[in-house]
Each structure stands twice: as C-alpha cells, then as structure tokens.
C-alpha cells in the first residue's frame, strides 16, 4: 500500500514538473511601440504605433482562423482565447516592460530604436539591456524585437536576456543588422503571424521567410533576420526552440534553471544582388 502511495506521489510530482505541449488555450499578446521619444532624445519613428495596432488586429484574425481549423478537427474543444494589450510612447518605460503584469504576456512585440544588447525606452536615456534584472521567471515565451542591431553577430551576448528580462522565454526574434524603416514591414509581420499561427510553420521559418520575401519584393535596406534561444531537453525530449509551432507549443517557461544544453541562434544573410539590365 505504501509503495502504491509513493508511486502515485512520484507520478504526480513528475506530471507537475512536465511542461504541457499543445496550442495555447489563452494567447496574450502585447505591443510596445514608440513613435516619438521624450524630449526627442531619439529620432521619431513614423509607423510604429500604426504597425503595432495592425499587428494586434492580425493576431485576432489569425487566432480566429486557427480556431475554425482546430475545432473542426477537435469537435467540442473550446477555442483559444486572445488577450491583447498595448503600450505607446510614454507607456513604453522599463516599469511596464519588466513588471509582474508584463510577465504574463505570452508574446511581446517591441518597436523602437535599439543597439547591441539594448532596447531604448520612451523616457530620456531609458534603456532595457540584456543584463537588466528581470522579474524572475515569466510566462513570456516569445518576443519579436523590431530594433536595430540588438543581436549583432560577433558583438552581442544573447544568453543574459534569458536570465534577466526574458527569463523562461523560448525564443526571441529580431535582427543582427539594422531594420526596415518603412511601413511595408507590417506586411512581413502579418505574414509571419499567418504562417506561424494558421499555416503551422515553425516559428523561425515563418519569420525568416516573411522578412526575406518583403525584402525581395519591396526593396529598402537589406536586413538580417535572426532568432536567439536556449536549447535542451524538455520532458526528456530534445527541443530546439527555432522549430516551435504554435499548435504544438510548450505552455510554460523553459530553461530558466540552468537546465539547458546550450545557446543557439539562426540568421539569414543575403549575398550581392544581381539585377542585370
């Protein structure tokens, strides 16, 4: 009898330590967008709030399409619900970026100026850096940072983000180069959401393909899309976060206790263009 109880206890503890895998049943998505900075301490960004607004609408639309498809295959299942939030201009300060409330947002989109290992905040000389102390383990699993050079190859240090500001995050999307400065970037990000949420693509494939396509068709500055992450074993299975799909995501923080095998990243670099005449 005692043995049985111990086995049940052991099983319960093991199950409690497991991170469940599947579609998020509630997907919370938040945008941080800076159009103009306090006292103009950084140059204005014309499209930031419009892009953030459009992305939130796109999340709602894509989750609706996802639900139709999911519920058709899983009759009687409840739909994935969406929580949306936004911070604009004076709301984009470190207290709103690193807070117990922000820790609950599953996906964070940031649009502002950046430099190596650093995001700017709205307030004068306000920064969030890779070695900023965070709020502990959070339920932010993914982030897309539209900011120049944050993950610059050969100069940046990605691992501290996963110990501080984004403790527990699965992967962070961004750039190793400068970024697009025009409105057409919205087409790329909406396409990314559609690919990842509805078309069931891996998060890195969805993001990198959407960004490369927009560069090819719309022109502008060349950019280098990049994903950074920790990899290791989850529930005894090897997990490379660049492969994570929305419909089969891990619903919990990962690799926050030095329980990872290594740090990884992927990026795409394009060669010399040839146009001919």
């Amino acid at each position, binding site marked *: 009898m005692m043995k049985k109880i111990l086995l049940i206890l052991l099983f319960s503890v093991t199950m409690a330590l497991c991170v469940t895998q599947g579609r998020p049943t509630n997907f919370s998505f938040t945008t941080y967008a800076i159009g103009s900075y306090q006292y103009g301490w950084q*140059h204005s960004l014309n499209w930031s709030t419009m892009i953030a607004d459009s992305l939130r609408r796109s999340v709602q639309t894509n989750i609706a399409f996802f639900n139709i498809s999911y519920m058709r295959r899983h009759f009687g299942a409840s739909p994935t619900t969406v929580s949306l939030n936004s911070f604009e201009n004076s709301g984009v300060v470190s207290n709103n970026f690193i807070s117990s409330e922000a820790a609950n947002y599953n996906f964070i989109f940031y649009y502002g*100026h950046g430099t190596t290992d650093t995001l700017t905040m709205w307030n004068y000389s306000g920064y969030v850096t890779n070695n900023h102390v965070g709020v502990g383990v959070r339920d932010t699993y993914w982030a897309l940072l539209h900011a*120049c*050079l944050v993950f*610059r190859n050969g*100069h940046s240090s990605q691992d501290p983000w996963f110990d501080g500001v984004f403790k527990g995050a699965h992967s962070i999307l961004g750039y190793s*180069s*400068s970024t697009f*400065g*025009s409105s057409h970037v919205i087409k790329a990000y909406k396409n990314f959401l559609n690919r990842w949420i509805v078309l069931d693509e891996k998060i890195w494939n969805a993001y*990198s*393909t959407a960004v*490369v*396509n927009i560069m*090819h*068709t*719309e*022109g*502008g*500055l*060349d950019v280098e899309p990049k994903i950074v992450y920790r*990899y290791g074993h989850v529930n005894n299975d090897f997990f490379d976060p660049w492969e994570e799909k929305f419909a089969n995501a891990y619903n919990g923080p990962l690799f926050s206790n030095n329980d990872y095998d*290594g*740090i*990884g*990243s*992927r*990026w*795409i*670099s*394009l*060669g*010399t*263009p*040839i*146009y*001919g*005449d």
Partner: protein
Amino acid sequence: MITRVGLEYQQRNDEVGVVGGLVLVYQLVQNIPVRGKAFLTMFYDSTSNLSSVEYQWLKVRTQNMMVSSDLNYVMDLHQKIFEKKLSEISESLYLNKMSGNLYGAVKSWHVIESGGQGNILQPCITYFGKYNDGDVVRYFSFDVDVFSIDKKNVELDICSGKDENL
C-alpha cells in the same frame, strides 16, 4: 533571373555553421525584372536538398494605355520621388551611424494592385546601392516609377503558391 543567393547560419554555443540556403529569382517580362508580387524563392537544407519553394508568378497580357505626354512633368516627378526615397535611406543609415552610396540603376516593372481594374505593371527604375554596417557590406534598393512614358503597359493576373518537401 537569379538576383540573390543567401545562406542560413546556425550558431551553437561558439560554433557557427551553414545550415541552409536560398535562391531568389525575379520574373522577367519583356526581359525586364518585375518588382513586387512576382518572385520565386527556393529554400535548401544543409545537404543542398530543395526543401520548399515559394512563388508568385504573373500572367501577362499587353494592353495600350493613355499616358502623360508631358515629359518635363514626368521627369520632375521622378526626380522628386527619387530624392525623397534616397533621403529616407540616408536617414536610416545616419541614425545607425552608417554610410553608403548608390552604385547602379536598371529598368524594371513595379506591380501595382489596382483592385477591380486588375494589376498593372508600371515601368520604373530600380536604384541600388551598398552601405557599411561595421565590417560588413550590405545592400539596399528602391524603385521610382517613370509614369508610363513608354506608352505601353500590361494587365496581369497573379497565381501564387507554396510547395513543400519536394
């Protein structure tokens, strides 16, 4: 016409390796490249096997259109848009303490999606240049319309799709 070749890199701890590649192809209409929704992208895995293809390809039909015959107006407008776009690129580079230069231009088509009237191929010039991003040379490009001065335009349909695991 193959315009770009790219490589996908992966870093694991301190080791960097190539894990894939892609080839970008522009559609040619009357031997002129089309910018916008007309392209083909082939993705390769680390063993050079084709893993997926993305494309949007245009069916083209030639049609005469009314155009401006005021060449001065056309040139003036082109110049203004060129300067505006160059200024936007310059500002982006300046903000990141980078510098660059234009080094070429080619004739091209620009797809204009015009709703019920179908899509239009607008003659334009694609300008391209390069800039220094630290120790890396990167490229940029932008299109400026020439406002139908060659008196011919085309109407087109778009077909698109994606094939995986070929």
